[in-house]
């Protein structure tokens, strides 16, 4: 039986695991990255592709800003393109209370450099003539944008390999245990990986491992419902998200450089965790198709050519488990990013590498401490 050793073993090769591997190597630590399928195949690869900061909880913005700096240097750092387009992010409101919500957020987030501008319906339609007359107000974050999830995590993973990380794809893990001062990670085929530090970046499967270390988390799995149109000449510019009062009415879209318009929304479905497949419910597709022209009427002239879903882990309080374990020395977590992890990915990797290498991080992440669940339990 083969035994591999490193300073850090990472379980889960999504964007969190891949970027952690990369930045740990940059700090000179040896890394083993284990992935059941292929790098970036689950939530990291199938999400909408938003790299927005606007709309995130205020406490998350320092991490989001740190990640943005890395996104801006994506090609330079990772040696490949992730189709990052910084055309801004536009939130749209249809009622006075939506506008109030946007104004409040813009004030609360004022010091984080998002450059948000409130716009009236009239000003919006002058600048974006394709918007529907029902749009009452909007907020533009001009420096935000989007990137291609299919490309980002695999590119970071390849960069990590070039930096010397040992990446094992198609490696199903059956157990993560602590033996003395070392973690012992066992694969289904009997291979064993050992390291004094373990980082769990297993996304929708992370809760199983944290629970095995006595740190259960309230996480559910959900499949987003995405669709994409045929390619059309580039016209839209910013990523657009309409504020909605229910999940079902939610709709957001972005136009990629190729010209296709990616449309998300319409709530979620429960994935098939046994076969690791997430399906699109045709009724949700139809909901989204009904919602999209309410924001941009001309979308009704297009056709969708493909729909997809994926498996994402959502925490009850929509905050990830990120940081050191509260119970086991050398154990770290970064999972459960609740549908908002893609933009954070590179920053999370950078922060986790800093934390593991130095024992501390300059970016505040206490609000994502896994210990909060046990404390909540104790209070209850």
């Amino acid at each position, binding site marked *: 039986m083969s035994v591999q050793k490193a300073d850090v073993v990472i379980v889960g090769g999504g964007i969190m695991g891949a970027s952690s591997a990369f930045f740990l190597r940059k700090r000179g630590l040896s890394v083993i990255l284990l992935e059941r399928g*292929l790098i970036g195949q689950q939530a990291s690869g199938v999400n909408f592709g938003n790299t927005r900061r606007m709309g995130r909880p205020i406490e998350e913005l320092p991490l989001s800003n740190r990640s943005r700096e890395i996104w801006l240097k994506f090609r330079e750092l990772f040696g490949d393109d992730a189709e990052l387009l910084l055309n801004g992010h536009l939130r749209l409101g249809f009622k006075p209370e939506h506008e109030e919500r946007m104004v409040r957020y813009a004030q609360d987030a004022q010091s984080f450099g998002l450059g948000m501008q409130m716009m009236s319906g009239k000003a919006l339609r002058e600048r974006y003539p394709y918007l529907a007359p029902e749009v009452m107000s909007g907020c533009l974050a001009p420096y935000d944008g989007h990137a291609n999830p299919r490309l980002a995590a695999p590119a970071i993973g390849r960069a990590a390999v070039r930096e010397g990380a040992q990446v094992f794809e198609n490696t199903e893990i059956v157990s993560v245990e602590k033996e003395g001062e070392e973690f012992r990670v066992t694969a289904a085929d009997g291979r064993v990986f050992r390291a004094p530090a373990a980082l769990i970046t297993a996304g929708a499967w992370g809760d199983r491992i944290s629970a095995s270390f006595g740190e259960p988390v309230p996480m559910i799995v959900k499949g987003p419902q995405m669709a994409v149109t045929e390619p059309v000449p580039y016209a839209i510019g910013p990523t657009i998200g309409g504020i909605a009062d229910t999940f079902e009415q939610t709709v957001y879209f972005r136009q990629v450089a190729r010209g296709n318009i990616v449309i998300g929304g319409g709530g979620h479905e429960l994935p098939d965790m046994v076969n690791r497949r997430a399906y699109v419910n045709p*009724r949700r597709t*139809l909901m989204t*198709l*009904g919602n999209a022209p309410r924001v941009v009427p001309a979308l*009704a*002239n297009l056709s969708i*050519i493909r729909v997809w879903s994926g498996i994402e882990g959502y925490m009850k309080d929509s905050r990830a488990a990120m940081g050191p374990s509260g119970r086991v020395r050398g154990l770290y977590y970064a999972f459960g990013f609740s549908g908002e992890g893609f933009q954070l990915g590179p920053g999370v990797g950078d922060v986790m590498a800093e934390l593991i290498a130095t024992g501390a991080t300059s970016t505040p992440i206490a609000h994502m401490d896994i210990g909060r669940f046990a404390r909540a339990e104790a209070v209850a």
Partner: protein
Amino acid sequence: MGQPRVIIVGAGPAGVRCAETLVAAGLRPTVVDENRRDGGQIYRRQPDNFTRPYAKLYGTEAAGAQALHESFDALCGKSGGKIDYLPETLAWNIADGELHVTHNQRTRSLPYDALVICSGATDRLMPVKGWHYAGTYSLGASQIALKSQACAIGRQIVFMGTGPLLYLVASQYVKAGARVAAVLDTSPFMRRVAALPKLLARPAVLRNGLALVMGLKRAGVPVLTGITPIEIKGSPETGVQGVVIRDNRGNERSFECDAVAMGYHLRPETQLADLARCAFRFDHETRQWLPETGEDGRTSVPGVYLAGDGMRVLGADGAEIGGRLAALAVLKDFKCPVSDDELFALRARQAGMERFRRGLVQAFPWPAQQAAQLPDEAIVCRCEAITAGELRRTVCDKGAQEANRAKALCRVGMGRCQGRYCGNAGAEVIAHAAGVPLEQVGRLRGQAPVKPLPIAVSEEK
């Protein structure tokens, strides 16, 4: 339980015979079909106001076509009818025991107890340098133009590829008065001789095939076997201008033309079976992934059945038998009385056709080696304009050795046809570049909608 609700997708030979058998047993199936009229591909009916006679339209298949059309007309009847027929209707997704169909920008879901998918086959295509120029058609599309609209795809046409359809469509074009510049077959003649024992399982069909080749030669059409396609010459402005090949002696030869019809036998249309979550298996003989089927078209999913060329390419008369067998399987599974004599007789006839099918696969093989030899600048995926070189770099530099991974990283098979045209060839390019067996490359996962779905669709409750 009461009568099972049966939906048949496709009104070609399999779908029509399936419906007929179910009606004979007292059921009222729903028949969903994309076309404006019944008949499917090979027995495609011309538009209402066209008046070409059967013999002219279908040649040796006239009797089969007429019989099928008359059967379907009888099912539809003058008033009411015995089936619910939904023409010009696309089945675009399947979920929770419902088939989602759209017609004229309206969509609705049809619940079913049994779903019989008779989705037919389309051309299996092998890219060649220049095949993206205007004027390159599939054999099937060339035939549709002729049968439906009495149009030729060009003034001077080269037919290139392999398989029975190559000769059939070329002959139909000659008969219709088109100028056929050449028929260029990649399969060596000796393969046909070797396959003869299997092909003799259906002597009449074999005779018809030989007559087609003789007819082409009599008409002065050069018919070459064992050729290797090199390039379709042309430019974006002019479209197709000619075809360059290497003949079986190794000499380079050119044929001037303004249109090329290509096809390398057929591939079943399997998206609906995939969306119904049927299990697939790799078929080593034809080098492609096909739905797993048990007896009489049963799939791995209870209540979902396959029949006709969408399951296995047996041709029109094989599809008629397959449609009947799938209907009998439905009836049996829903505890309706079924004549075992009929069942056994149909299975025996199908077995003979299966032998012939294998003969065709042997005589007209898929030229897998061409994918390996495709020049880097040749486009593999026409929807997304992905070249063989780009795909190879994705495999070699980015480690994408699996079909869906390669699609994710370079968009091959990601366009509006969803890999239906380039999927087979793309997988061959990946396998060769990665140095892995084709089976290991896997297959592109089916994703709804089966064909583009207008955003403007509204739901009919």
